[in-house]
Every structure is written in C-alpha cells, then in structure tokens.
C-alpha cells in the first residue's frame, strides 16, 4: 500500500537545516534531493503517485525510495517528501507503508536533530562559539560561550 498522507511539521522552516538534520539521522548528502520547485514522488514500483494532489504528490526535499530502503525499512519503500508551503513551513509526505518506520517517533527525532542544527546556527549568529555537547536522560545539552560585549 503506498497511499500518502500529509503530516505538517511547523518547526521545519529552513530547507538547509532540514537537510542537515536528515544527514544527522544517517542519510548521505547525495541521497537528499532539494528542489526549489517541488518534484514528483514515486511509489515502490517507480510509478508517480497522486494521493494528496490530483496533479501528483510533489515535494521540495526528497528521500528517494532506494535511500529509504537502505536506511529505514529495508523493504519496498516509496519516496518520502517534505513539501514547503508559502509561509515557509514544511509538511512531511510519508506513505502508509513507510509510516511503520517513518512514524511519529522518527519525526520527533528528526525534529530534535533540526532543533540542534537551528540552535547552533542561531547561537553562531549571536556571536557564540559552540563549546560542546553531552547527552543524558534522553536530552542533549549544548553549551555556547561568548567573550566580551
């Protein structure tokens, strides 16, 4: 079954940070497509899908099914897409088959990776230097320092 559903992820607003977060989740840079104009998603047969849009399910950041098979399901995956809306926010397009792996827990971990990337970027813009990180009790502590001001 390859029916797609749309999952809004309002935290995601920046494609570059989303790509960095996907890399943190194990995907290689060359496995992540980024398109200014949303491109067609394909099912496990290689057929274009039209579940969320009669003109075709399209996304701006795409993990093709070969990469999804390699890193998540190991089976007959479909493409996973992240579609950017007019307000800059993204929705994840995940097929019913892949939602067994790319589920809420996976989206939560991806959101945490996105937040880590965003915090490091925002801190650098404020003149902070990344000192280090440590993980404890399911949380990551990032420490930053800034001299003067």
């Amino acid at each position, binding site marked *: 079954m390859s029916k797609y559903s749309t999952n809004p992820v*309002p*935290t995601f607003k920046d494609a570059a940070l989303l790509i960095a977060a996907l890399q943190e989740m194990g995907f290689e840079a060359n496995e992540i497509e980024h398109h200014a104009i949303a491109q067609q998603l394909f099912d496990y047969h290689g057929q274009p899908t039209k579940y969320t849009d009669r003109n075709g399910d399209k996304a701006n950041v795409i993990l093709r099914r070969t990469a999804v098979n390699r890193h998540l399901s190991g089976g007959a995956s479909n493409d996973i897409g992240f579609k950017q809306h007019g307000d800059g926010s993204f929705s994840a397009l995940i097929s019913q088959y892949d939602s067994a792996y790319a589920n809420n*827990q996976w989206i*939560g*971990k991806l*959101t*945490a*990776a*996105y*937040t*880590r990337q*965003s*915090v490091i970027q*925002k*801190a650098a*813009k*404020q003149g*902070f230097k990344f*000192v280090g990180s440590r*993980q404890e009790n*399911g*949380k*990551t*502590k*990032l*420490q*930053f*320092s*800034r*001299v*003067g*001001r």
Partner: protein
Amino acid sequence: MAKTTFVTVEIDDSDGSFSVDLTGFEGKGCDAVIKAFAEISEPSKVIEKPEYKFVASQQKQIRK
C-alpha cells in the same frame, strides 16, 4: 577584562522541545539571545540570570 558568557540549551531528543539556561550569562543582551532562539520555536523553559529577573521585576513595579 572581558567577561565570558555561557548559554546552555537543553533539547529533548524525542521531540525537539528545548529550554534555554542563561544563568551563566554576563552583561547585556540576553533578550536578543532569547529572541533568536524563540525564532526556532517557543522554548519550553527559559532560566534567566538572577539579575535579569531582578531588573524585570523592578520594571514591572515601575509600570504599576
């Protein structure tokens, strides 16, 4: 001598919610730091430096 300011951000690995700890913040500018992080999403908690809380409470009293 220039002071060194420290900021710690704690991120929940399961959902990306985060808190900002400014207890090691020296000098001015913590408002800008809080604002910058709030652009990501609303922090679940902000631990302000003690003097910031004191000044903020004084300002509230003056407004009254």
